[in-house]
């Protein structure tokens, strides 16, 4: 690919998804009944809801399904596939709008997803669901508002909800947790703002709300959650109706906020924690990926950050520059490793790290595509990443570039 920067990575294909190449934070793979590998992708915003791409041959991906959102004041952003079920997050632009919540689809026939239920989390102060995690076929772990939750600060509206979908036609909430002090009526005082921002953008930084909640079958009694400016939390969810804090770690302040993902490496007693870059032109630099010693889960100790390319080279190239999503070792047809970490870093592309020595994470490969045509910024903004069990890497551009499939010589 002309203009790409590559080290030990090879681009296999790029597909702009029928001209709707803005990809959100949802990529999840289904092995269909006929053995095809279908990558389901949530779009970053309207008008598209989600796309299904046959990536059985990653060199020739084929869009086999693409759906529309009900209106343009909403986005899906996040989805997860478990077997032949898919859960899709719906987040609206303005609190009170609908539909806000989670729609569950039967995707047995990938070309024609069939809606089987909708879990409504709309409300006067709710924007619905931003992100969800669904890997066990039983529970969805979501970042959402709800009709009965009135946040003290409008941007603190999405909290941790556990939704029972053992009967996927009747999803219902079984537990919730929110950062103490963020709900009206809480005894705890409201948290001190890390970097106060104007109120016009509800999606922006300056928020104590949930982003990701990761729960793995190996530790079904633990939720690892990124609570944006509130930092990283380990929750005991052995009683789902009453999640309890085991421990937390928060580098904000002095760091500029937005804990995004907390991924445990359970066989090594480590956590990988990312802070999402949410402002262009390095306005919120540095947004780092952290390595946390969690051998004693009640005492989380930061031991390293992942190396980043020079801010003087990337900070002002256009768009965002810094950490964001990582491949989350989810169950399913997914590459799982506690020694190799795959991440996307907006205009710094896709980067792969060897963390055998967690005190010194080492970058071993990278790929930066050129800025795609039609993007609102001059650089590629790599936004989401998934690696399948063949080692094929899938990554999406936030604004226009669509799906990139790659392989790494590692």
């Amino acid at each position: 690919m002309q203009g790409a920067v590559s080290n030990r990575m090879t681009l296999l294909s790029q597909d702009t998804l029928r001209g709707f190449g803005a990809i959100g934070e949802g990529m999840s793979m289904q092995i269909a009944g006929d053995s095809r590998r279908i990558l389901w992708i949530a779009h970053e915003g309207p008008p598209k809801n989600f796309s299904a791409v046959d990536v059985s041959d990653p060199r020739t991906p084929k869009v086999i399904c693409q759906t529309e959102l009900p209106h343009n004041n909403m986005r899906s952003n996040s989805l997860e596939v478990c077997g032949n079920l898919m859960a899709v997050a719906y987040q609206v632009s303005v609190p009170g709008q609908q539909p806000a919540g989670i729609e569950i689809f039967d995707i047995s026939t990938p070309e024609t997803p069939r809606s089987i239920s909708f879990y409504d989390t709309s409300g006067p102060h709710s924007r619905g669901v931003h992100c969800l995690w669904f890997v066990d076929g039983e529970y969805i772990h979501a970042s959402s508002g709800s009709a009965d939750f009135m946040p003290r600060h409008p941007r603190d509206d999405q909290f941790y909800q556990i939704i029972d979908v053992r009967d996927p036609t009747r999803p219902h909430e079984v537990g919730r947790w929110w950062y103490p002090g963020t709900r009206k009526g809480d005894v705890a005082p409201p948290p001190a703002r890390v970097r106060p921002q104007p109120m016009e953008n509800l999606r922006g930084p300056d928020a104590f709300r949930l982003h990701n909640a990761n729960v793995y079958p190996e530790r079904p009694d633990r939720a690892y959650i990124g609570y944006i400016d509130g930092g990283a939390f380990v929750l005991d969810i052995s009683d789902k109706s009453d999640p309890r804090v085991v421990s937390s770690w928060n580098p904000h302040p002095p760091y500029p906020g937005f804990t995004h993902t907390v991924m445990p490496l359970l066989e090594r007693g480590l956590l990988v924690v990312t802070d999402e870059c949410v402002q262009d032109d390095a306005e919120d630099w540095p947004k780092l990926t952290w390595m946390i010693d969690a051998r004693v889960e009640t005492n989380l100790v930061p031991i390293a950050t992942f190396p980043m390319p020079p801010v003087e080279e990337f900070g002002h190239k256009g768009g965002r520059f810094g950490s964001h999503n990582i491949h989350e070792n989810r169950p399913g047809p997914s590459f799982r490793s506690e020694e190799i970490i795959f991440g996307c870093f907006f205009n710094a592309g896709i980067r792969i790290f060897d963390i055998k020595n967690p005190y010194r994470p080492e970058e071993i490969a990278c790929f930066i595509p050129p800025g795609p045509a039609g993007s609102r910024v001059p650089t590629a903004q790599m936004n989401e990443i998934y690696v399948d069990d063949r080692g094929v890497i899938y990554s999406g551009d936030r604004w226009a570039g669509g799906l990139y499939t790659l392989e790494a010589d590692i």
Partner: protein
Amino acid sequence: MSAGSGAVLHVVYGIVEDPGAALARLRAADPGTSPLTPMSFSMIHGSPALRLNSHGWMNLPADVVSGLSGTEALLHYCRERLHNRVSVFSLAIRAFLSHYLDVVEAEIEHLRGELESRISKAGLPISLGFPTHRDFAFSALLPLPNAYIGLSGDRSGGAEFVRVDALFWDGKTATAVLLEGNSAPTRSDAQRLKRLEDESPHVSILRLKKPMSGIADIARRSLNDAVLPFGPYRTLHRDAFAGRETENAPSSGSGAEKA
């Protein structure tokens, strides 16, 4: 034997980031490096089995020895030294080492009658209590944790290695242990492992799932040919038990086992 002369298997083990550089450093520091050091092993055909009582894998200063009274304390010391060879984040390898030594100790209790009979046959009355059947624990095969095995044909100083979770050498076969867990091998890791399997007939791969039932066989094999127990700190001359301790002999090549 130096680390580079005629070896069929070069191994760097322990807390290692760059095995090639580590091996080069060892060779530069001491061209006559012993076959077994606290972080390396060079195996040739006919090398004696590596056991907990083998000389070289740990340093055991005299002042430490004087503070270790009895089999229990010494075995505990061996456990700690083995654990210290592994990164604090290699929880699976640490669990494997603990489990292996637990199995060894259990196996020794299980075989107590037979082991005491070996001691008696060697002319040492059991009533003396020295050695005891428990001392056979030191005859257990030594696991080299987090072992990087140099691929055969590599004569450049170890540019290519394949990592395994532990390696045993019983005098005939090297058993490379892979603990199946949450990490899939990368493509290059898988290729290197395939090369090892294809090119090294004296290496067998043991893939262990939880629970690690395959360990018992290694522990049992450790004891089959041990005529007498030797703790790693005792100085014993080969001729003291001439003809009786060939497989259990220390590997220092000096004719004596010393710490």
